[in-house]
């Protein structure tokens, strides 16, 4: 089972049936696996705050949601995270590609990487960092934790976790 297949299997096992995505090169495999899953409604978003709105609606409609996006999205979604997801106390697992870490080839990505954990910390968002492939073993428990506490929860996944940035 690949890492992407394991992530999708855990989503399905935790009854996550509504997943929105904004692409990142590092996430291409998992987005593809989500799209192929017959148990998940995959709805690509044009912007991450739009995706969080869709997830809020799906949750209220009775479906467990998740969002898959890049860490640059933290810069565009702070208002939505605070005034929608957190204010109304809604669960939202956020599988995030942590660009700008070791093995990153694009210098500009580092500019957002240096703020990512600080911003998540400032927002009191529980944050997990997947660096080694075996870290994915915790994904199932993180999903259970998210739907237990009704909070947005961040899972940062760096290039080392994904086996490099396509080198």
């Amino acid at each position, binding site marked *: 089972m690949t890492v992407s297949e394991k992530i999708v299997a855990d989503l399905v096992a935790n009854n996550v049936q509504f997943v929105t995505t904004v692409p990142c090169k590092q996430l291409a495999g998992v987005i593809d696996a989500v799209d192929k899953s017959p148990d998940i409604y995959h709805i690509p978003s044009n912007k991450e705050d*739009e995706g969080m709105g869709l997830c809020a609606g799906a949750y209220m*409609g009775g479906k467990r949601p998740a969002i898959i996006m890049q860490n640059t999205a933290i810069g565009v979604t702070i*208002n939505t995270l605070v005034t929608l997801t957190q204010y109304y106390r809604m669960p939202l697992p956020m599988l995030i590609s942590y660009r700008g870490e070791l093995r990153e080839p694009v210098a500009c990505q580092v500019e957002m990487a240096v703020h990512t954990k600080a911003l998540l910390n400032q927002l009191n968002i529980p944050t997990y960092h997947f660096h080694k492939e075996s870290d994915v073993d915790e994904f199932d428990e993180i999903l259970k934790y998210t739907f237990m506490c009704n909070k947005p929860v961040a899972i940062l996944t760096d290039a080392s976790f994904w086996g490099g940035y396509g080198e």
Partner: protein
Amino acid sequence: MIRSEILRNIAPILRDELVVCNIGLPSQEMHLIDDQPTNFYMLGTMGLSSSIGLGVALAQDKTVISIDGDGSVLTNFGTLPTIANNVANNYILLIIDNGSYGSTGDQPTYAGQKTSLTAVARACGCESVIECKAEDTGKVLQAAIDSKKMTIIVAKCESGNIKVPVITKDPVVIRERFMQAVKS
């Protein structure tokens, strides 16, 4: 006719449906005119009424109406292609287009100038898009509900606001009440 008059006119139609109300005055006006457990009031997050409503519609079978404004649709323009490409026939997006940012002091929007949201929605791929006069909103809305076809309504009206109190209900209460209404 201004937005609050449209809302007053269509309140009897909205009463039986799930409604996602846009941030600011539209939510405050709906709350004042006809507060219902089937109403989800947005207390923040400008622009996402259409996205939240689409999410609710895709997750269950009851009819969902997102009440949006021209300014809010302009804020979240990416929503129209998403709606067009994820057809939910229990979903209606009602854009009350008064050509202004009503809640912030009636500053003009581009929708009141050269930009037609009706044309934009069609160009994005939305198949059933109806522009109507404010006075006809109720008739058009009822027809859209009865058609069981995803519909975008652009109701053109004048800008202007009435004095309404802010909503002091707790957001978790609003959300929980709405979720119970979805399930009932």
